[in-house]
């Protein structure tokens, strides 16, 4: 198939003025791609480890602990801190991606029935998915940390 490179392409990102709805739209795809690769791999690993017996499951939970920021108070050298921060960032990132994709997905479902296209409403709910995802991420991690401290 022929493609004429001089034809304008849409969306023409370089001349668009960024707004929250655009950010939420592209974040939906970015978070979706992250969840579909990393998140799905983690999910499959969980089930396969569960089916493979206690030893495989312990191996999985050790990794999940690293993603969940386990061992925060343990003394570490600089390299171990970098590794720790790297895995914790992936764990937090996946949690946030899940909430962001979930909320912007619900927003898309509402828009699919034809609602929420008015400029102000559209903008408001775009911002709300961003705020909501951050809030839910903080809540989920707060609950996890409290739960671990209580255990």
């Amino acid at each position, binding site marked *: *198939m022929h*493609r004429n490179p001089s034809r304008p392409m849409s969306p023409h990102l370089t001349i668009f003025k960024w707004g929250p709805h655009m950010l939420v739209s592209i974040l939906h*795809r970015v978070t*979706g*791609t992250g*969840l*579909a690769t990393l998140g*799905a*791999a983690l*999910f*499959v690993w969980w*089930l*396969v480890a*569960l*089916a*493979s*017996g*206690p030893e495989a*499951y*312990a191996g999985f*939970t050790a990794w999940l602990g690293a993603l969940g920021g386990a061992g925060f108070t343990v003394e570490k050298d600089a390299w171990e801190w970098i590794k720790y921060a790297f895995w914790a960032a992936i764990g937090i990132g996946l949690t946030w991606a899940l909430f962001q994709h*979930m909320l912007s*997905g*619900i927003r898309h*479902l509402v828009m*699919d029935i034809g609602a929420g296209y008015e400029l102000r409403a559209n903008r408001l709910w775009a911002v709300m998915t961003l705020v909501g995802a951050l809030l839910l991420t903080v809540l989920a991690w707060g609950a996890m940390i409290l739960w671990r401290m209580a255990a």
Partner: protein
Amino acid sequence: MKMETPLGRVRGLGSAKAGAHHWWLERLTAVATLVLLVWLVVSLVRMPDLDHRTVAEWLASPLAAVPMLLLIIGMFWHLKMGLQVVVEDYVHSDGPKLAWIALINFLSLFGAGLAIFAVLKIALGAGAG
């Protein structure tokens, strides 16, 4: 000047007439995944312990195994379609596009297959002991 009618030129370049079905299934699997994921998180949080024995015994019961299988089907179907849309939108040359879509189809089927097999192994008794 090519000896070609306007109809001959545009034939085969249009929609494959499968877009609406793809769109609808993406929404349907989104709702299924949303509901079942909430179910999974609530179930895990309510468990007294998350060790191997507790979780495996829970998953062996029909009322856990069946929703989990449905979650796997809905989630992997959804992620396969979502990744495909991303590739269709951003990969513009036909060869790489075809290769990516084939890879997405194979890998998501492989992932779903692994997950389904794992649940069945536990639920049908071989892994719970």
